[in-house]
């Protein structure tokens, strides 16, 4: 199994470290030629969604990535990655890959002073640490979307077929369980 990590901006290195701990092969996507390599799953990391959204277009990654995701490539988006996958962003007219049937709210907890960490229940896993950094949440989900975690009544993790998103950052903690959960999706898809 090989997982590609979108590495145009943000905390891509941290995802790589977690995959390394899990013994999963991985490489970074920074430009079009990187898409020629084979990969079974894709991680879109945290960072700034405006920057990543712009760079995937201008570095000609957009069409291929979107096509692969629509053809069921397993994808895992954290924070900005969630925003890149969201079909709608209620406080931003600009959407990006827009492949997942969710409506997200950007910077939903305000500025950095609103950032926080907590422990919460993740469906099918149990209690996991959750770190929210200028995080979004999911306001609304489509009919085939399964809700996996909530915090204070707001959806913070969800799955639609092979697309997995979290508003928080599992890559910032030592807990490997959510990445393992994604690896299982990739494994079952093969």
């Amino acid at each position, binding site marked *: 199994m090989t997982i590609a990590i979108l590495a145009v901006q943000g905390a891509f290195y941290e995802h790589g470290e977690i995959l390394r701990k899990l013994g999963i092969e991985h490489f970074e996507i920074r430009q079009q030629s990187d898409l020629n390599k084979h990969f079974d799953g894709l991680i879109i990391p945290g*960072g700034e969604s405006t*920057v990543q959204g712009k760079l995937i277009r201008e570095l000609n990654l957009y069409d291929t990535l979107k096509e692969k995701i629509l053809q069921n490539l397993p994808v895992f988006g954290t924070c900005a990655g969630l925003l890149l996958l969201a079909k709608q962003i209620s406080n*931003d007219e600009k959407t990006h890959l827009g492949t997942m049937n969710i409506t997200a709210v950007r910077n939903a907890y*305000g*500025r950095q002073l609103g950032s*926080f*960490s907590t422990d919460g229940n993740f469906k099918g896993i149990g209690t996991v640490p959750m*770190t929210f*950094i*200028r995080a979004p949440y999911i306001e609304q989900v489509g009919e085939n979307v399964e809700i996996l975690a909530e915090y204070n009544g707001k959806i913070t993790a969800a799955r639609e077929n092979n697309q997995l998103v979290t508003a928080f950052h599992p890559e910032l903690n030592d807990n490997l369980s959510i990445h393992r959960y994604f690896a299982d999706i990739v494994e079952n898809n093969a």
Partner: protein
Amino acid sequence: MSKRFELNKNLAQMLKGGVIMDVTTPEQAKIAEKAGACAVMALERIPADIRAAGGVSRMSDPKMIKGIQEAVSIPVMAKCRIGHFAEAQILQAIEIDYIDESEVLSPADDVYHIDKRQFDVPFVCGARDLGEALRRISEGASMIRTKGEPGTGDVVQAVRHLRLMQSEIRRLTSLSEDEIYEAAKQLQVPYELAKYVHDNGKLPVVNFAAGGVATPADAALMMQLGAEGVFVGSGIFKSGNPEKRAAAIVKAVTNYKDAKLLAELSEDLGEAMVGINEQEIEIIMAERGK
């Protein structure tokens, strides 16, 4: 380490691989955001103009900073003077995302830096070497940048600071366990921080390059030398075509090893900011705060 410090370190991790741009108006902030800045630094005058104007340079008008906060959706940073904790309290009160305790402004205290652990908002500080970086982290900085020499368009000092820091990190990494105590003493830093660098081969927080970056090639140089992202101050809005230059620097930071792409990005950018050599300047800002 407190939970807040962890969260503040985490925000810097999200900025990695990105470009933080100095802006002086909401319009410039929008241009920077559109060009792909991962954050903006709101200030009344960019370093080149501070240098030209001379005199005492202070924290910007909060109203001006708020105007920029309203104009963009990306994180907004602002500068306070070294040691001026009251300015920092004001910036925290307007919910700034990051405070730069900066040598670009006139220092308010020539002995003490701000006790940054007393704040909930994160701080980034400049450093010329490993000792300075770890002292700032010990005071509570959750992000480090090289000092470079702001407002000059001359990258030589940023290169010097980053190279020195990296070489000191490599040296510390090579020491045996019982040698770390003496190394900490010489660096004038707490043992625990020296030990962290020894064990991990890097700073405990994110490290950006700053000061004198003016071209995509400058940005690529700093990234190849080990910076995790770059600040561009005067280099963008003092140049002929800010939008194009800003966007090119953003892409150069993502693909900093691809010389062919860097060549394309460096084409037709219009005039770069006028550079001043370090021998020609009167105030060495990097010497402020140690």
